[in-house]
């Protein structure tokens, strides 16, 4: 297992269009780092640069402390799992997994034991003579993962491996991959646009936007202390409520509703001229819970079974709250909601940075 370090890694095309702007990242031994962000943010490009499939225009990529910018992919000791599985269609599953080892002149006995171990781990050991075309998407993905495992690489690279699977299969495979990581203790770099995958799988998440690193932290930190509006809006389902506000006298004004802010936030608010107020749906409760009280009116309710999502009109803003399944008040009713002060966030409206 190895560490991966990115120092001011940059990527540009034709010396003109820059798509990755000087990213710094340190991924430790055995860590699962997830690169997450919207389409086009550069996460796949970054992964491919680590793999060696794309040239590095500037900066350095180090694997296990060694600079690998000019090292051919086959010599970087990495293995990759692709979004479309990229299996060799005319080879059996066994041969698909054995291919890389055979190229390295690994003795057949070793190949056999490695392939069988991986196959058993992924529960595909009973179908190794079959060809990829006779398999389902989930099975193919397992083979692709198996192909990577048998190589026993220093770093595993996953490029949106679950995007082509249906929702239920995705959830199953997510758990499998997490178990795999615990079992193998491998260094994994995982790219996805799905925040649920990111939150559940990662040791640390790197949130990327437009070729820049916005935040690199544990899922809890990403969730509780997002470094920017972008990160805050990205995680959580439903996502954090983000509304523009005015700061006056230690309070955030949402139209005519005044939210008293904790002292720490008030002090930091001075760093910006325009502000965005943020609070997660689960931090908004009804009258009987502690917190800053505000008058609200019910706009719509969305019962989900285990809970109900209620959209409240508070001042000039609409806030979504997670309420109990027993929530009965119809649209139009007037209630008091309570906002937990420790879960309040303030962002610079112009830059999106957290304050």
């Amino acid at each position: 297992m190895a560490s991966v370090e990115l120092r001011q890694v940059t990527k540009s095309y034709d010396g003109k269009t820059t798509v990755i702007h000087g990213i710094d990242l340190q991924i430790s031994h055995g860590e699962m780092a997830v690169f997450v962000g919207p389409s086009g943010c550069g996460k796949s490009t970054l992964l491919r640069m680590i793999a060696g499939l794309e040239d590095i225009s500037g900066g350095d990529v180090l694997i296990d402390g060694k600079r690998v910018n000019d090292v051919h992919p086959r010599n970087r000791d990495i293995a990759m799992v692709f979004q479309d599985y990229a299996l060799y269609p005319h080879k059996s599953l066994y041969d698909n997994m054995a291919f890389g080892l055979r190229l390295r002149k690994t003795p057949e006995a070793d190949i056999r034991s490695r392939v069988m171990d991986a196959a058993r781990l992924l529960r595909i050991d009973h179908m190794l003579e079959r060809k990829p075309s006779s398999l389902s998407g989930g099975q193919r993905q397992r083979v692709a993962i198996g192909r990577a495992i048998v190589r026993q690489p220093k770093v595993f690279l996953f490029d949106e491996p679950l995007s082509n699977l249906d929702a239920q299969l995705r959830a199953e495979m997510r758990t499998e991959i997490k178990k795999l990581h615990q079992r193998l203790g491998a260094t994994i770099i995982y790219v996805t646009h799905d925040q649920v995958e990111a939150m559940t799988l990662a040791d640390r998440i790197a949130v990327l936007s437009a070729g820049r690193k916005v935040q690199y932290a544990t899922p809890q930190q990403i969730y509780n202390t997002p470094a920017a509006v972008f990160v805050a809006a990205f995680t959580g389902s439903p996502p954090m409520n983000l509304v523009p506000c005015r700061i006056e006298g230690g309070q955030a004004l949402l139209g005519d509703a005044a939210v008293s802010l904790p002292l720490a936030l008030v002090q930091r608010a001075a760093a910006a001229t325009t502000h965005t107020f943020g609070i997660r749906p689960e931090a908004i409760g009804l009258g009987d819970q502690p917190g800053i009280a505000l008058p609200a009116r019910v706009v719509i309710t969305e019962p989900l079974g285990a809970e109900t999502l209620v959209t409240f009109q508070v001042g000039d803003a609409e806030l979504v709250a997670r309420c109990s399944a027993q929530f009965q008040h119809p649209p139009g009713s007037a209630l008091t909601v309570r906002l937990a002060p420790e879960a309040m966030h303030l962002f610079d409206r112009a830059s999106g940075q957290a304050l």
Partner: protein
Amino acid sequence: MAAAALQPARAPAVGVFWLFVLPFAALTAVFGVWPIVLSIQTSFTASASALKPSPTWVGFANYLAIFADPVFVASLWRTLLYTLLAVTSTIVLALLYALLLNSALVGRGRTFFKLAVFLPVVTPDIAGYVVWRWLFDQSFGALNIALAALHLPTFGGLASTSTVLQAVLVAELWHHLGFYVVIFLANLALCDKGQTEAADIDGATALQKFWHVVLPQLRPALLVNSVYALIQYLKTFTVVAVMTKGGPNDATNFLSYYAYQLFDQGRYGEATAMASVLFAIVIVLAVGLMRVQARGTGS
């Protein structure tokens, strides 16, 4: 933040691909590009000296000569007119037949009809045209015997200047139609069934469906294949060589054939000048097509 040193993005190494491409490049260069260059070169030399190590340059003399040659000019017009006629009939007939074969009316017979119309495409054209030549024969050609038996007027066939072009066209259609029928069938299969069903629900007749739903989707295919057919028919040669030898009275003396005759007579300069003229026409058409296609896809 320290400024990162930007390097220009390196193109992927070509390496071993040079090796892969070498035989292909060699063949293309030696038997494709070089002959074409040579041909254009020869068109600027005096025929008698073309094969000598240092030929005599005569500038545009050959070109002036051929355009002053009434046979050439007539041949040029004839070729263009025939090509236009052939392309139109081929595309229209192929489209109609493809529509017929595609419809539910024909159903299970489709495979057989497809094979029947495509078989002439893979048949060596020489053998096919030899047969057609005799089918058209005035005395004992099957066609005229059949027409006479049905009390219909006989067909002048290859013997009369007024009918020879039609006869040649029939033979060429026999050989080429199937190709375009199969292409259009494939394109029809790619048509969006959802649109047709929506039109059905809207109450469209078969003709309206064709005009408003199917035809627009076929437009790019029709365009590409029309140009492909144009290029193909401009080169009409074998059918003339087998069936009419350019006659009667030069009625079927198309450019390719006339040029070849000159080559046979050793008039290399003029022959290659004609070939270059034909080549120029094809290039113009092909480039024109690419322009129109590019505009169509908005690239």
